[in-house]
């Protein structure tokens, strides 16, 4: 393990963290405002990736495909909200978990029926398919840099919307005390639809962004979903700032852990045992970090509700 590899791993970790943030942002707001737990948020990510790949193939252009994914995932999110989710707002968390679990089963299988089990590929745009020299003799893929830049820009835009606009003010107010906002004459359901649709769009956008570097397949949203849960638990439910910092932390821990753990273990164990325990420990590391943080701050780092 040398500094170059460490740098590459750190960049990969940041880029993964940014994608996680795009997923977690919608999830944390939906939960914060409506007290609604949505397991099906991960399938929005999957649907975004499928839509991105399909639209890019139809239009023949990556950029057009990515652009069209935004309204398409927004519409899809609102459709799901209309068909399923809105009937469960008044129910307990247990019902919400199970109903959204049913949505996952249906959509994962639906993608399998529509697109088959073989992974799909979304071609990378030619302009971004090369590499950039970040150090002497070290090329880092341009596309991954682009994901980082776009993700950071989206995060900044989100920060602006939530912190500096009227709608964002209502969302923040809703996250800290929804009944009070409702009592002040704000249509909380409409506000929620807005948040929900926007969150679905962000997750779908993350899916389409990640599609060229991942294989697009049924169930691809499940692992990011659970990591996004870890992110919002660490960051504090309802907090965008918390979600951002926690997403970067989780992305870095996950990626660096996988890179460093086997080498770290080699200090104590023989190579083959080190590889095994290293891999096992690395896959558990994120959850251990989460447990450690929660042991000290059960409500997360930046809870929106006090």
């Amino acid at each position, binding site marked *: 393990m040398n500094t170059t590899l460490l740098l590459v791993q750190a960049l990969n970790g940041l880029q993964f963290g940014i994608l996680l943030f795009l997923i977690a942002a919608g999830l944390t707001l939906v*939960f914060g405002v409506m*007290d609604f*737990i949505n*397991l099906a948020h991960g399938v929005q990510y999957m649907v975004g990736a499928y839509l991105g790949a399909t639209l890019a193939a139809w239009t023949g252009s990556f950029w057009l495909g990515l652009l069209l994914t935004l309204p398409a995932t927004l519409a899809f999110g609102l459709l799901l909200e209309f068909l*399923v989710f809105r*009937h*469960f707002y008044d*129910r307990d*968390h*247990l*019902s919400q*978990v*199970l*109903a959204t*679990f*049913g*949505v*996952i*089963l*249906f*959509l*994962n*299988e*639906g993608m*399998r*029926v529509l697109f088959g089990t073989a992974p799909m590929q979304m071609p990378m745009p030619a302009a971004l398919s090369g590499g950039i020299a970040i150090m002497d003799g070290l090329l880092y893929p341009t596309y991954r840099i682009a994901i980082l830049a776009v993700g950071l820009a989206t995060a900044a835009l989100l920060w602006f919307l939530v912190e500096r606009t009227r709608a964002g003010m209502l969302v923040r107010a809703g996250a800290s005390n929804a009944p009070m906002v409702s009592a002040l004459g704000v249509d909380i359901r409409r506000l929620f639809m807005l948040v929900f649709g926007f969150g679905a769009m962000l997750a779908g956008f993350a899916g389409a962004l990640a599609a060229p570097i991942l294989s697009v397949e049924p169930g691809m949203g*499940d*692992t990011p979903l*659970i990591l996004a*849960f*870890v992110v*919002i*638990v660490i960051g504090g*439910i309802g907090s965008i700032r918390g979600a951002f910092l926690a997403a970067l932390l989780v992305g870095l821990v996950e990626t660096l852990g996988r890179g460093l753990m086997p080498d770290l273990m080699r200090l104590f164990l023989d190579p083959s045992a080190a590889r*095994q325990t290293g*891999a*096992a420990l*690395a*896959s*558990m590391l994120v*959850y*251990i970090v*989460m*447990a450690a943080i*929660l*042991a000290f701050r*059960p*409500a997360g780092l930046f809870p929106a509700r006090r």
Partner: protein
Amino acid sequence: MTWRDAAVPLAIFALLAIAPFAGFGQGHSLTLLARAMIFGMAAISLSLIVGGAGLVSLGHAAMLGVGAYTVVVLDHARITEGWMVVPIAIAASAAFAAVTGAIAIRTSGVHFIMITLAFGQMAFFATSSLALYGGDDGYTLYSRTELFGTRALEGRLFFHFTCLALLILCWALVQALLASRFGRVLRAARENETRARAVGFEPYRYRLVAYAIAGAIGGLAGVLLANGTEFVAPAYVTWQRSGDLLFMVILGGAAGPHGALMGALAFILVEEWLAHVTEHWRLIFGPLLILCVYYMRGGIAGLLRRG
């Protein structure tokens, strides 16, 4: 427990006991019934924490996983004697539940759901990285667990009745726990934590003990699951499996352990039937699940009580 409450579970146990002699004696039917009973045990253990303590765990499959992987680890070391394997597996899963529960129970509500989900996922990734035990591909047991050195568990009927006996034992245990003072404290804390504290009970301890007991029963179910298929894979520990277990509890009605048992039996049978109808049975199962949750608030147990 009133006579009417006991009638339903006793009828189910009687049906399960005569099933092998009433047309369900072939290999395939017995495998299916054993599977249903094993998941019945797991659902009963989950109902102790969901229904009893009001803690919604979305990581219960990990308990089964710890039990099943204990069998694997011991099998790899050529230890297959049941009087070694079963206590070790139960202790391991209870310990796993106690450690993860100690952290998870500090939180409540949605945090608890997410943290149990995260710990379940941790168990999943840990099992898939165990290259020594097959990693993602899973591990085929050399032999089933032995009883006093005999291979009695390999007999289909013997295995059927072992599962049934343990199922009844677990049901009775959970039923007795819920009816006891311990169970009443759990329910009191579920209904109103502040009041439970005010009368001098510390809910945390009671919940943690309930969580560990549920983990222990889940571990026992995991041992049986490993023995039933003679194969263990990380697929046993996926979070979807935890979701299935939760659905079984709700399908039956979280009212009591027999509700969870009915939910598990119904789940396994419907799953089997749908899988025969179409390869893409989840397309039907997903919407069915949503409709069940929406319309059947009391679950099957609720329907029976009303009917």
